[in-house]
């Protein structure tokens, strides 16, 4: 517990963490405000039998579509959250900070667990703020139609899925940064993982491979299969994200234990 509190203190007292957090939240607000007019217009045009046309030529049941938008809105920040994790992990490789850290907590397993838990806890809060921002903007669009929709169990489940994705993907990015020993290297590796999914390189070869990438898994976990071409089930997506987090954390643990603390 003491090591966890120490790691949390390190996170909260690093200006870079606040800057990246602020940028992520501001970016989410800007992106959502850009779409606000589109959402409001689509909601205003919902038919008496509850059909909405968010995307032209693609009518859907309104409640399903709004909940899908809610999940998709938060997922837009998916590529940026690992930068936060890389900044948190990368601080150890600046000015010999890792040496001081290991002096304070010399048992590497205990240290790694504390770091992962602290990073996960911080990212969880940021993810909740992102989800809250998405909810606030969508509430503005649906408040005259069905404001209770955003408080249903299904909406909460969507947020929980996003938060799970955010924490697991950031744990992965954190562990990768520890292995690569630098913020920039961690950011590049995380963005590379994202880019492979977004460019659909692997999906063009085999859908099964795309489903094994973190962001591909996130799409499978979060998005509505009715309007998105997904490559696996939500359960598969969650298992893949958990697998990435566990495997990279294990490798980071081995690296931390075997390498000198430099």
């Amino acid at each position: 517990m003491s090591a966890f509190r120490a790691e949390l203190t390190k996170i909260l007292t690093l200006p870079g963490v606040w800057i990246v957090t602020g940028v992520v939240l501001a970016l989410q607000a800007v992106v959502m405000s850009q779409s606000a007019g589109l959402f409001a217009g689509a909601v205003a045009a919902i038919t008496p039998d509850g059909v909405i046309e968010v995307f032209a030529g693609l009518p859907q049941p309104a409640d399903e579509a709004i909940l899908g938008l809610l999940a998709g809105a938060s997922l837009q920040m998916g590529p940026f959250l690992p930068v936060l994790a890389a900044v948190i992990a990368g601080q150890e490789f600046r000015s010999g900070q890792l040496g001081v850290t290991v002096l304070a907590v010399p048992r590497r397993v205990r240290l790694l667990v504390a770091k992962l838990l602290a990073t996960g806890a911080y990212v969880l809060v940021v993810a909740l703020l992102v989800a809250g921002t998405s909810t606030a903007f969508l509430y503005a669009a649906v408040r005259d139609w069905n404001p209770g929709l955003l408080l249903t169990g299904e909406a909460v489940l969507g947020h929980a899925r996003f938060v799970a994705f955010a924490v697991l993907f950031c744990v992965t990015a954190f562990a990768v940064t520890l292995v690569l020993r630098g913020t920039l290297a961690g950011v590049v590796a995380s963005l590379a993982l994202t880019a492979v999914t977004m460019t659909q390189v692997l999906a063009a070869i085999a859908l099964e491979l795309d489903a094994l990438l973190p962001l591909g898994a996130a799409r499978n976990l979060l998005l509505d299969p009715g309007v998105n071409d997904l490559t696996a089930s939500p359960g598969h997506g969650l298992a893949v994200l958990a697998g990435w987090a566990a495997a990279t954390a294990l490798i980071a643990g081995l690296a931390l234990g075997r390498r000198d603390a430099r």
Partner: protein
Amino acid sequence: MIEVLGLSKHYGGRKAVDDVTFTARPGRVTGFLGPNGAGKSTTLRVLLGLDAPTSGRALVAGRRYRDLAQPLRTVGALLEGAGPVPERRAADHLMWLARSNRIPRRRVREVLDLTGLAEAARRRVKTYSLGMRQRLGIAAALLGEPDVLILDEPVNGLDPDGIRWVRDLLRDHAASGRTVLLSSHFMAETAGIADDVVIVHRGRVVVRGSLAEVTAGHASLEEAFFARTGDRTGGPR
């Protein structure tokens, strides 16, 4: 008590530390001396669990450093190349260290006062002078009120007042029955503080004993060093 027993650390084919053995006893300041590149910092890094030894053992208070439950309460260390993130405030740096070892919050204020950094506690470390950073490192070492102090080149960057303050601090620490291991390449400076001396050269211990024993028959500790090593350049291999 610090015990270093047959310690070796190799990097590929290079022997940075080669079969080093010495003891630093309670109530005494032990000077760990040698030129730059002699293996002093590597020995301390292995002793403090940062680097893994190739062979041998290093014990503090009879245990490996990494086996200490709250190490900062037993050992205070200042190591070259191990410092705070420059963007963090000094007080925050000390606060996370305190939390990591369940050290009371009041100790942060006490060590800031003790090291003369109280006024600058809310400043970011990157705005500190070299001497202030050194004082912050010493503050971190003193945070847990440890029985053992291990300081690597503690007077680097300090002004004459600061050097005198460190000298008095180490003497007081040893006088209260605690252990001090002081690593330095300044032989004359260390001769003014140390009770015992261990001299390393090219990764090996060339002489160890009380200051009086080591300097017997020589005009100074520096002369004793050159006589033992036959090396006036003193540089690394």
